[in-house]
């Protein structure tokens, strides 16, 4: 039972509306529902294929725009490259990062975890809105 139908029945139980009015409201609700199902937002979306980064800036009156589209497949393939990095290179990178004040252990970064991260990227949207800059990151 959807939320609106429950609200109507609650109103009927509370005596706020009559049985006839409840029937009319439920009938109207059923008439509206097929319409809602045809709206683009209600349709199941296809699987996104691209990661899109849009940046609009305004510096010294000059507009700037960055529009980058990266296939998610490329990100997945890039993640596979992580598995090829030799362990000694990761240790060097860890030591340098530690020296720079970033205590991050790259050896703990597993390709499976990165793949899971990319799989869930399609649900992510980042919107940054400032007077002189606008950034949008999303999947399409």
């Amino acid at each position, binding site marked *: 039972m959807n939320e609106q139908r429950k609200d109507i029945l609650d109103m009927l139980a509370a005596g706020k509306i009559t049985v006839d009015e409840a029937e009319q409201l439920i009938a109207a609700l059923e008439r509206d529902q097929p319409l809602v199902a045809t709206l683009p937002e209600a349709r199941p979306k296809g699987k996104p294929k691209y990661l899109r980064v849009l940046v609009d800036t305004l510096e010294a009156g*000059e507009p700037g725009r960055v*529009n980058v589209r990266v296939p998610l497949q490329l990100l997945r*393939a890039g993640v596979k490259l992580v598995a090829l990095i*030799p362990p000694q290179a990761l240790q060097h990178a860890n030591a340098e990062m530690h020296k720079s004040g970033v205590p991050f252990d790259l050896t703990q970064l597993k390709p499976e975890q990165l793949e899971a991260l990319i799989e869930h990227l399609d649900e992510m949207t980042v919107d940054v809105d400032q007077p002189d800059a606008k950034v949008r990151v999303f999947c399409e």
Partner: protein
Amino acid sequence: MMPQLLTVRVDRRHRRPVRLWIPVLPVALILAPLLVLALLGGIIACLIFRISVPRTLGTGWRVVSALPGTRVDIKDGHTAFLVSIR
């Protein structure tokens, strides 16, 4: 699928815009001798750093074949730069 066409466009103020359409396969065939040398260099580097050669080749091919659809479009004032891979 392997990339087929690389488009590069550079627009600058008071200059003629540069537009290049580069067909990847013919260019790759022309540069085949250099590509073979680069491939050999890569294989030697893999052996030196003890990285699996078949895995590296497979991953490299996967990266190349995932490139179509990539588009980088940067515009700053009167300068614009576009790279598109199809």
